[in-house]
């Protein structure tokens, strides 16, 4: 607080843009979060429509609503879309919006890199999705097993879009992960030590590590596939002696951590929601945090449980079976800690809370079926059947999607300053909950009764008709449920009940500032003394027996106070935890904000052009391909250089 220097002199570069340019040039983490949220919801509709068409086809035996060719594209794109274009970006929306707010930072560590991540995601998503409109979408399944996906057996362009698209999306995820991990390590407000971080931030931190360590592996596996398809290498070519299992191993070394990448943010969100609506702190905070780390860590040692049928031999089966089972322990710890967070509380059944409770109830079902595949001899009867499809929808939909819905209802007021309609929310919840179980519960039966997955048709009289019929009707009911949500979402932005700063009486920093938060988040960076800083202010009596300390304050003062004037550099002025209700502009407060810039978008576009040249080359148009490569490279390098040589903020 030593320095509220004279207002910085803003250059023209710093002038705020308006309208669409505002969105294209934004480097504000909250806006980028908003972009992620809307894009991901759009892709959810895409993935959902794909699912509904599949269910239409599977409703009856020997149906001919869609061809085999189309069906294969549908499930491939459905899985790919839901995993890479829906849940990961929905989580990213929350990383963006919430992490800086929860740790008391003004932005992420690298705001422009953050914008870059989003644009790469958007371009990658479109790149991989658009081909389905031309019946040329990827059709090798979301885990794209070789050799089927090699050039010999998938000679069309279809799989090119997949291998390149996932590669593009990987760039986005990795860039974002470095950014958020650095943010969490390094941008926490004074006093916000690790064991005071809100649980969502904790789980996000684990997720960033999973991304940092898992994505390089898929990157390499994809490079091999690209080289095979475009440059004639033999990594996955059986005739050259390649081992088809190489891809499977590399994929699942990535793929299993990936499923925890999908679930942990949702776990984090419900860990915020459950305490808030129970009016109690999270039960066993340290254990919940540690179990998250343990889940992440163990997640790297279980990948081959997706491969029990490939014949790895008894030793590998034993090892991977047992390590997989171990994950039940830290996950169970979370489940029980959540229940005991509610225990003894005063539970308000808001929509957010309902979704959070549904996560506990439904994820447990998915977890138990997960354990049942962890036993290899038993999994041999389950793998690649609808029983597996049931498992992963219970964990993905019943876990990740339920948790994210909880997060959306909970954070909407902070995001937009208004609440979502509770009555519509309740209808959405119940319809969704019933439809979800109607869709996916029967799949357990279909699977154990012998129905393979990824089949576009099945014969009559196999004992599967009833279950498929139920599943399909469940799926058809999910559409109205989601439409109600969408209606509620967009309507509430302008017509919802005005929320105020802390409508739910929550405990963490993000609720101490106005809703929606001002561009600079915190006029004064809060100094934190405990895990529930806001309750310290609003309910000090509740906070009596929780440890408080001023750890980290001295250092922070040292680094902000005395030295500021010496270098003339602005430091955030720091103040003990307080509630900010005024909303001034950054200019008025003299807070330097990063300048908006469109360069990250152009760099991302350069990457898109570069990657797009490869399908062109594959089509035999070598010259055009080289031209595109040249253009892409120039765009990429040129704009990157421009980006890096432009100051992030105005000098002052």
């Amino acid at each position: 607080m030593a320095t509220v220097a004279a207002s910085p002199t803003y250059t023209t570069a710093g002038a705020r843009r308006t309208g669409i340019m505002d969105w294209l040039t934004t480097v504000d983490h909250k806006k980028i979060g908003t972009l992620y949220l809307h894009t991901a919801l759009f892709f959810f509709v895409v993935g959902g429509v794909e699912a509904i068409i599949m269910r239409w086809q599977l409703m009856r035996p020997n149906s001919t609503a869609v061809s085999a060719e189309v069906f294969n594209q549908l499930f491939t794109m459905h899985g790919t879309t839901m995993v890479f274009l829906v849940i990961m970006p929905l989580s990213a929306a929350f990383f963006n919006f919430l992490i800086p707010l929860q740790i008391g930072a003004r932005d992420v560590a690298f705001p422009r890199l953050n914008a870059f991540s989003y644009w790469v995601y958007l371009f990658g998503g479109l790149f991989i999705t658009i081909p389905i409109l031309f019946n040329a979408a990827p059709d090798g399944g979301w885990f794209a097993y070789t050799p089927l996906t090699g050039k010999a057996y998938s000679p069309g362009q279809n799989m090119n879009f997949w291998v390149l698209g996932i590669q593009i999306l990987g760039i986005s995820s990795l860039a974002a992960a470095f950014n958020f991990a650095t943010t969490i390590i390094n941008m926490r407000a004074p006093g916000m030590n690790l064991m005071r971080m809100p649980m969502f931030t904790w789980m996000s931190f684990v997720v960033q590590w999973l991304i940092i360590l898992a994505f390089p592996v898929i990157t390499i596996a994809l490079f091999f596939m690209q080289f095979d398809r475009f440059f004639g290498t033999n990594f996955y070519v059986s005739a050259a002696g390649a081992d088809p299992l190489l891809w499977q191993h590399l994929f699942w070394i990535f793929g299993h951590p990936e499923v925890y990448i999908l679930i942990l943010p949702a776990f984090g969100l419900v860990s915020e929601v459950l305490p808030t609506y129970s009016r109690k702190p999270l039960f066993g905070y340290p254990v919940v945090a540690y179990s998250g780390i343990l889940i992440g860590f163990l997640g790297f040692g279980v990948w081959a449980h997706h491969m029990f049928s490939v014949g790895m031999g008894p030793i590998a089966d034993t090892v991977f079976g047992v390590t997989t089972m171990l994950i039940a322990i830290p996950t169970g710890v979370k489940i029980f800690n959540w229940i005991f967070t509610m225990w003894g509380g005063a539970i308000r059944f808001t929509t957010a809370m309902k979704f959070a409770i549904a996560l506990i109830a439904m994820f447990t079902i998915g977890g138990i079926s997960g354990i049942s595949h962890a036993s290899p001899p038993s999994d041999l009867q389950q793998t690649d059947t609808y029983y597996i499809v049931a498992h992963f929808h219970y964990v993905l939909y019943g876990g990740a999607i339920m948790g994210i819905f909880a997060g959306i209802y909970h954070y909407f007021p902070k995001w937009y300053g208004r609440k979502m309609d509770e009555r519509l929310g309740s209808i959405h919840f119940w319809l969704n909950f019933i439809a979800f179980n109607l869709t996916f519960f029967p799949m357990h039966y279909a699977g154990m009764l012998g129905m393979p997955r990824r089949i576009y048709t099945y014969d009559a009289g196999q004992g599967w008709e009833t279950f498929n019929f139920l599943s399909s009707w469940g799926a058809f009911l999910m559409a109205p449920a989601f439409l109600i949500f969408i209606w509620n979402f967009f309507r509430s932005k302008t017509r919802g009940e005005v929320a105020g700063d802390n409508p739910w009486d929550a405990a963490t920093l993000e609720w101490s500032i106005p809703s929606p938060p001002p561009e600079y988040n915190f006029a004064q960076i809060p100094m934190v003394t405990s895990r529930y800083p806001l309750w310290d202010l609003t309910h000090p009596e509740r906070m009596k027996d929780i440890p408080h300390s001023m750890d980290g304050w001295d250092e922070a003062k040292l680094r902000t106070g005395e030295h500021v004037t010496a270098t003339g550099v602005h430091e955030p002025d720091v103040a003990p935890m307080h509630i900010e209700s005024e909303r001034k502009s950054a200019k008025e407060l003299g807070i330097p904000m990063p300048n908006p810039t469109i360069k990250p978008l152009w760099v991302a576009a350069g990457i898109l052009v570069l990657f797009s040249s490869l399908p062109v080359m594959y089509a035999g148009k070598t010259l055009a391909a080289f031209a595109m490569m040249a253009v892409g490279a120039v765009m990429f390098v040129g704009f990157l250089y421009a980006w890096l040589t432009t100051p992030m903020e105005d000098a002052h």
Partner: protein
Amino acid sequence: MAHETAGHPNPDHAHEHPTWKQYKWVALILTVITALEVWAYYIPALVASVFFVPLLLIMSAAKFAIVVLFYMHLRYDHRLFRLLFTGPLTIAMATLIALLFLLARTGALHVS
């Protein structure tokens, strides 16, 4: 380079740094080990023995460690960095070893 840039506390450089003398020795040791490695490669008896592979692995691990500790000054730097490096390195090595075991088996039996 303790705190002479007063306005600029720089905790990541707070510890002592190695000096030219040390750098020189490090380079020398690296050179010697490399020479030993190549030399070992040219002793057929050694190459044929069971010691060859472990020996080479140890030598290269030593070089690896020396560069990381001294040239990347991990030894002198903040302990966070040590964590950021050794954690992933451990997972990477474990994955590599596991993969070698899992895919060591050569398949291909029959079928015309």
